[in-house]
């Protein structure tokens, strides 16, 4: 177990550096001079541009830039925008909002997705299974932003049960619908994955043996079918946590939620490269850590993994 965890942590390190370097490269090593473009029609004076270049280490070799940047991040200094605003300050407000949004999405997709998936998997081929399956296909086929518009239009404009725009400092209730929209596609995937897993496990030999020893059906399902089939589902949900952070761009821009995605979108539009890199780095970090937690969770849930590390 120790080695398993250690191994995962060791594997996480190159992934973290690789992914952040990739992001840094994409943003800073691309054509166009962000500083020159900063002033818009009236470029900043040469001296000011040079000062900015120095401040953001843009005059140094690429790899040096990257490591200086990372070093700052590790010291808790997320840097500032080219216009001099503190990134940490902006993100400190935004992060909790997006996390709240993600929690709603995760709870929604996990609870409803697993519940529907279990029912579907246990009653494969019945009308209720077909209904759930069709529902999941529909949710996957309709893009999240269309779903967002429709929710906004129907619930916000016509029924007025939610504000059309969420705005600053949203409450949990205000985030409920956007969170569900954010988690909708994942809900469909969780449903489908759970369904497949449950049906597969239910057909396994050890489940028949559990039935044969006289366990009542609910006991067979809860102790033997569910536990075994939920392991990959939990893995998926964990990885999805990282994905949702990215998906927040769309949802937050539709509902005007001042979260991370909103800021990221704003920064991309404004060419605020430092801010883009910082946010994407944060998102990648969340993703990598979520993955690590999933791996450890996996080992806790499955004794076979604890026993041997997968090669």
């Amino acid at each position, binding site marked *: 177990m120790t080695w398993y965890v250690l191994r995962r942590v060791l*594997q996480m390190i*190159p*992934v*973290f550096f*690789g*992914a952040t370097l*990739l*992001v840094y490269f*994409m*943003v800073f090593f*691309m*054509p*166009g001079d962000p500083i020159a473009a900063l002033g818009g029609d009236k470029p900043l004076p040469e001296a000011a541009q040079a000062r900015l270049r120095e401040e953001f280490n843009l005059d140094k070799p690429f790899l040096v830039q990257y490591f200086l940047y990372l070093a700052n991040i590790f010291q808790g200094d997320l840097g500032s925008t080219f216009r001099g605003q503190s990134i940490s300050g902006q993100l400190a407000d935004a992060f909790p909002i997006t996390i709240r949004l993600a929690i709603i999405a995760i709870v929604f997709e996990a609870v409803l997705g697993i519940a529907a998936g279990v029912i579907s998997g246990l009653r*494969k081929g019945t009308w209720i299974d077909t209904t759930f399956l069709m529902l999941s*296909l*529909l949710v*996957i*086929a*309709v*893009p*999240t*932003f*269309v779903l967002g*518009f*429709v929710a*906004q*239009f129907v619930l916000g*404009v016509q029924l007025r049960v939610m504000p059309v725009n969420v705005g600053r400092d949203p409450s949990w209730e205000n985030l409920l619908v956007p969170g569900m929209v954010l988690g909708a596609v994942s809900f469909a995937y969780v449903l489908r994955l759970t369904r*497949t897993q449950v*049906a*597969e496990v239910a*057909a396994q030999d050890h489940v028949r043996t559990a039935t044969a020893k006289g366990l009542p059906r609910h006991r067979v399902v809860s102790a033997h079918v569910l536990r075994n089939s939920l392991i990959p589902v939990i893995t998926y949900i964990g990885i999805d946590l*990282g*994905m949702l952070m*990215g*998906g927040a*761009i*769309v949802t937050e*821009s539709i509902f005007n939620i001042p979260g991370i995605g909103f800021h990221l*979108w704003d920064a*991309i*539009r404004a060419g605020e490269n430092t801010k*883009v890199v910082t946010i*994407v780095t944060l*998102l*990648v970090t969340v*993703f*990598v850590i979520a*993955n690590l937690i999933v791996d450890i969770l996996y080992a806790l849930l499955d004794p076979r993994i604890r026993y041997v590390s997968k090669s």
Partner: protein
Amino acid sequence: MSRSPDTLPGQHHYVAPSNEVPLRAVDAVDTEAEPRSLWGEAWHSLIRNPIFIIAGIMIAFILLVALLPGLFTDNDPKFCELRNSYGGPQAGHPFGFDQQGCDVYARVIHGARASVSVGVLTTIGVVLLGGAIGAIAGYFGGWFDSILSRVTDIFFAIPLVLGAIVVMQLFREHAGVVLLVSVMVVFGWTSIARIARSSVMSVKNAEFVTAATALGAGRTTNLVKHILPNAVAPVIVTATVNLGVYIVVEATLSFLGVGLPDSTVSWGVDISKAQSALRDRPTLLFYPAGALAITVLSFIMMGDAVRDVLDPKAKKR
């Protein structure tokens, strides 16, 4: 030891009449039936699956629309007159007009090409790149595999939509199908690579590969002639489902303004434009979104149907 005299009721020596179950020759071959390969078998059960039939017809139709939109409409999707702005349905314009006065029906028909080509090309690129990397990692294993797997993890850590937004924004001026497809391939190949890797790994230890080695087949022969043909099924399944997903991603990026340029006729662009008029003209959103949903649905249903016949575990149930 013979206990026949005192056998218990129901346990006397019973012999079935010999004509009840005629004895077959041991292990006889049925020479009557038509020969059917593994793929032939899969095809045989596919064409009996209504989901496959429906999805297949829809996909064929969508491809036809994408290739020859002229068959379905004579109207130019880029011919827009402001006086027609928000005009209702009329003869020759069944879906009415959008804000700029463009014919909505024509735009929906012509929009298919952008979505389908992005979906198809991205899928091809992802299968080639991800398939190659995954197959190599799985086949050679060892250090090679470790390095390739970490590279895969690195790219996997950046979600497709997120990576594509960042890069597409930087290259806004060069936006177009080629750039969009390239970017989606760069951030999308990992899903196929992981599947190809585990599929090749499970096939390479199969006994028939060892048997071929013992017959004198070399490594390359084994890889090309035995391993790849047997490892390709899960890749096909995932690629089909993903094709639908790529179309959604294209629409999402176009909606955010970083996908295909505004000048392109595409469902994503039209949905994005329809957003502003949602209150007054919800149907403007409905048509392109509906077309998109039907297309995506078709590919996902196709993927599901194919999985049902190719995945041995699905078959068992």
